[in-house]
């Protein structure tokens, strides 16, 4: 069941083949949208675990921008999934950037010496990239948890957040690294908020929605996963496929199954 379960999520994210030579997500930008009834953070946890442990001695590096939770939170969860984040951090394969309680106000653009918080964050990301050997830069995956809290840190300036995300996106073209972002689709009620979400959707190569079941709460099915790989739009090659399956989050793993086919 576990190997089958890996395939469903891996297929949806384009992680079918994890090898040492190929960048894990192929330089794609992945957007995960969830809601208050069903959290999509399990996708981030599974992804980190796959990137760091699936291929022994791989060059994969995860740069995690944490706006939502401290390191201990992720460490505890990933330990149950069989991944020691502390050890990975010591090896330099998991770089944790603690953005809790950090404010990123919009700087005085145009003025001499003017810098914004998110510009400084981008500068840190490029430093991490340049510190890696050139051949390994495409193996870097930047994970942001989550974009709505980045907006809060930027004092509500969604334009500034979009600028930052755009620059992160350019790194996928420049270096071949990958970008994974998590956002909550149900917190935007006004037109401006929806515009912000749609801007992110247009820029994504893989769009994932984690939602509750249409039939309501269930004890053994915790939600459904809808994924669309839009690489035909962004990378010029046709790899357009949809994924849809349900999942159940357990203590030490996650079960994935097609509707009605739960073992």
């Amino acid at each position, binding site marked *: 069941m576990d190997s089958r379960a890996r395939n469903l999520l891996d297929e949806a994210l384009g992680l079918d083949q994890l090898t040492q030579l190929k960048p894990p997500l192929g330089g794609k930008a992945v957007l995960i949208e969830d809601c208050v009834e069903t959290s999509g953070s399990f996708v981030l946890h599974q992804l980190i675990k796959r990137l760091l442990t699936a291929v022994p001695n791989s060059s994969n590096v995860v740069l995690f921008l944490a706006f939502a939770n401290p390191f201990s939170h992720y460490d505890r969860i990933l330990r149950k999934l069989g991944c020691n984040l502390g050890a990975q951090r010591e090896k330099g394969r998991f770089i944790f950037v603690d953005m809790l309680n950090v404010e990123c106000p919009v700087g005085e*653009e145009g003025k001499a010496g003017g810098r914004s918080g998110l*510009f400084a964050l*981008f*500068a840190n990301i*490029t*430093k991490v990239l*340049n510190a890696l050997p050139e051949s390994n830069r495409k193996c870097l995956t930047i994970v942001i948890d989550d974009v709505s809290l980045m907006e809060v840190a930027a004092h509500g300036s969604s*334009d500034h957040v*979009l*600028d930052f995300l*755009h*620059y992160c996106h*350019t790194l996928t*073209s*420049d270096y071949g690294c990958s970008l994974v972002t998590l956002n909550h689709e149900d917190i935007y009620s006004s*037109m401006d908020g929806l*515009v912000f979400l*749609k*801007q992110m*959707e*247009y*820029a994504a190569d893989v*769009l994932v*929605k984690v*939602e509750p079941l*249409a039939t309501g709460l269930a004890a053994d099915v915790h939600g*459904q996963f*809808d994924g*669309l790989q*839009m690489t*035909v*739009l*962004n*990378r*010029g*090659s*046709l790899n*357009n496929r*949809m994924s*849809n399956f349900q999942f159940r989050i357990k203590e030490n793993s996650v079960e994935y199954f097609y*509707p*009605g086919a739960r073992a």
Partner: protein
Amino acid sequence: MADSICRTIRDGALEGEHAPSLTIKDTTASPYGFGVFTHVLSQASTLILAGKSQSRGLVVVAYSRSPSFYLDFLKRSGVDVASSQKWIHILDCYTDPLGWKHQLADSGILPSNSSAGACLFQDVKDINKLQSLILELGSGLVGQGKVRFSVAIDSVTEMLRHVPLSKVAALISDLRSHDQISSIFWLLHSDIHDVRVTTSLEYLSSMVASVESLNQSSDGLSGDLGNLSLLEQNFRRGKFHVRFKRRNGRVRVMNEQFHMEESGIKFTSVTVEDGLVSQGLVPKVLFNLELSEKEKLERARVVLPFEHQGNGKPIQIYDGRRSLAPESMGEVSADTSQSSTEECSNGGGEIIYFRDSDDERPDSDEDPDDDLDI
């Protein structure tokens, strides 16, 4: 119809007229506007290289893709990019639109920026400078004379993030009226903007091409499992609706369908019966709702328990007690003056049936409407 657009772009501007301009718009429900944009781009490039277009050069203002993406795309489309510096310039507003990387390079954090095969633009908020650069690059391709060039903007949506609508409209209007501009086309994500913005840009366009989903009710990714098949179909194909605005004011509307393939976007005429719709209405469930061929044949052979079988054969009555096998059915003469009766072979009862049609003779001169009290 997509060919009509490309022909209009090819023919370019008439003397004393504004250059033809195309808005391509899409939504997240059918986000294939970029596929249409690249299709028009490759067609325009092919015509320019072949010398069949009024335009002799192309300036691509790239906001949402890197210059290398466009060069790779044109190469995959069979366009000769080896001589690209002679006929195409890419104005790179994607790599470093706000100058962040330039600042990091000054600080020694990043190597110096260079946009291979493109002109790097690092101040997207300065629309005047952008306009000057577009004209300068275009003139650099075709010279200062009467030769014209085309302009393609890959995302006016992204441009509008940095510059207000009035300035974007002024830019497009100035370019349209410039002597050296042959044609302009751009992509707009209409669900990101309010109606005022979309309408303003449509007013500046002589052609508006809308990319829509086949099923209007679908909204990008829907969580409805029953519509997964329908959604999957929609994400490979959709409707292509084009509005042409003629100089005399006449508006012509045309419709096509499109689908995405390995080689790019393909356009087809709208079919009267689209099997996709009927196929898509059958929900994907675990039990079978459709008939196999064998089942359809057997259903066609069932003798219906009323008179007229509709097959041209003499009328037969089936009362449920006779065998259904064709060879066991004897032909009964259709004598309408007689009622047909059947005696049960086992005895004990019979059915006497008087047909209503027995009361009337087929060649009666009576007008059946005579008894109406009108």
